[in-house]
């Protein structure tokens, strides 16, 4: 249970918003739940709704609207390649295709070991350093810019190693 395990963090989050406007804490709490459970399970959504005294559907609908919330499990690491116009002009589409080919998956798919998902996403505000991607995992998000297939595959090897060590 989030409320038992992360009581002080939840209290800190709630304290950021006026007492009569606690609903504002819903997105930070969803991030906390995603960190705890890996993705937003039905139970996790229920827990967040209970903390804020909201209907579960009021919370669940946010997950469909915001792309960084996930209601199904993916790879441990989601490699999100920007393929929007400025990045595409610097070869990001070819980069994403080649990366998938190297990993033996389709764009949007997950490797057989369940570690790596590759997705195409909208602009990440790094247009001058394409090809680039962000890696989303349970703990957060990190940018990787000016990438080549070699540098990306090296990073993926490291991530797989970290996942194996955990």
């Amino acid at each position: 249970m989030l409320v038992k395990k992360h009581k002080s963090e939840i209290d800190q989050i709630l304290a950021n918003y006026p007492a009569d406007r606690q609903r504002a804490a819903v997105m930070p709490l969803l991030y906390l739940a995603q960190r705890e459970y890996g993705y937003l399970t039905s139970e996790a959504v229920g827990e967040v709704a209970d903390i804020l005294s909201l209907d579960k559907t009021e919370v669940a609908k946010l997950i469909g609207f915001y792309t960084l919330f996930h209601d199904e499990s993916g790879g441990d690491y989601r490699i999100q390649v920007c393929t929007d116009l400025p990045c595409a002009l610097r070869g990001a589409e070819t980069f994403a295709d080649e990366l998938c080919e190297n990993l033996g998956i389709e764009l949007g798919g997950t490797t057989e070991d369940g570690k790596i998902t590759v997705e195409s996403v909208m602009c990440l505000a790094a247009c001058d350093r394409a090809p680039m991607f962000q890696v989303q995992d349970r703990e957060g998000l990190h940018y990787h810019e000016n990438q080549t297939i070699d540098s990306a595959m090296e990073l993926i090897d490291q991530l797989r190693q970290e996942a194996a060590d955990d």
Partner: protein
Amino acid sequence: MTEYRLLRHRVIDDIGQLDVYLENGGFQAFEQAVRDKTPDEVIQVVKDSGLRGRGGAGFPTGLKWSFLGESTPRYVAVNADESEPGTFKDREIMEHNPYQFLEGVALCAYAARANVAYIYSRGEFWDISAQLDERIAILRERGYLGENLFGTDYSLDLRTHLGAGAYICGEESALLESLEGKLGMPRLRPPFPTVRGLFDRPTVINNVETLTNVPGIVANGSDWYREFGTEKSPGTKVFCLSGKINKPGNYELPLGTPFRELIYEHGGGIPDGKQIKAILPAGASAPILKATDEVLDTPMDYESVPKVGSQLGSASVIILDETVDIAWAEYKITRFFQHESCGKCTPCREGTYWMRNILDRFEAGQAAASDIQLLDDVAQGIQGKCLCALGEFAGGAVAGGIANFRSDFEKRTGNGHE
């Protein structure tokens, strides 16, 4: 040659450390304002400076602050949702010159007589937002934030808040909805946020770059600020240069600098000896321009770019060379808007979907000659009917593409003039 007023980290190493920022005059403007100036005096100097909002609309900042309703509490919400394709300036400021930005937020809050300011970053700025948290904690420790600042009765707290991946939250009323824990969908206006904004309270919403201008203005006055730029578009601006260009990146230049200077002097021209074909001056959100001599010699300011048929917007200048097919570029742009349409109003939700559908046919080489007219009809049909600018931008982008580069669409229908 301009001096750096925003990207000061490029000349002052380690300005991201508080002590270095303080040695370079940091937080003097804020301390003096809180001790010796009234909020109205701060608003007046920002008005006199002519500073205009850098998020895209170019609205006069001081004027916006003067519209604030009287009721309390009031809030400041900082728009750090930088998501326009081609825009990456706020990120550089927050990563490398964070204290100047935070001092700007503090000055805005003082001018607004607000005691809490929220910094709403796009969720992808996870690491940047965490760094801001650390710096805000340092400012509290060192007495630049907190209760009874500098021995006065003014108190201020800054708080960060992360979005979760939705372009629409950069639209100010959608940002407020999202910050309140709802779907990021635009509100009907009026009431405007300055009257009824965050948590139904009077709220000032400003972009990161806008606020980063404020410490210099308050410290040095409006005449100093007006040393650069034009009469109606004063100051320097960070221009984001991307696409088919030798040296992509951020360039801080006076407003009114011509496109040609940005592209050829600073950006090093077009790679591989290719010719420039088109310019997107404001990312996906303003009509595409043919790179004629007239356009290249146009000053990049809020008045001049509209005269050649587009907008300065957030000054995210994307360069397309002769190898780029504009029908493809419009497909990419439309794919973006269709994905990011919030779905609240019908013209945008349905219009972006159908434009995407038709452009898919162009991409697949299955478009009929009549599809150009159909696409143009949908694009024109969206405009003037949407709740917020997103739908307007989506329609304008496609209509502008067809108007300026019709032959690129014709080539793909099999009825063109190859």
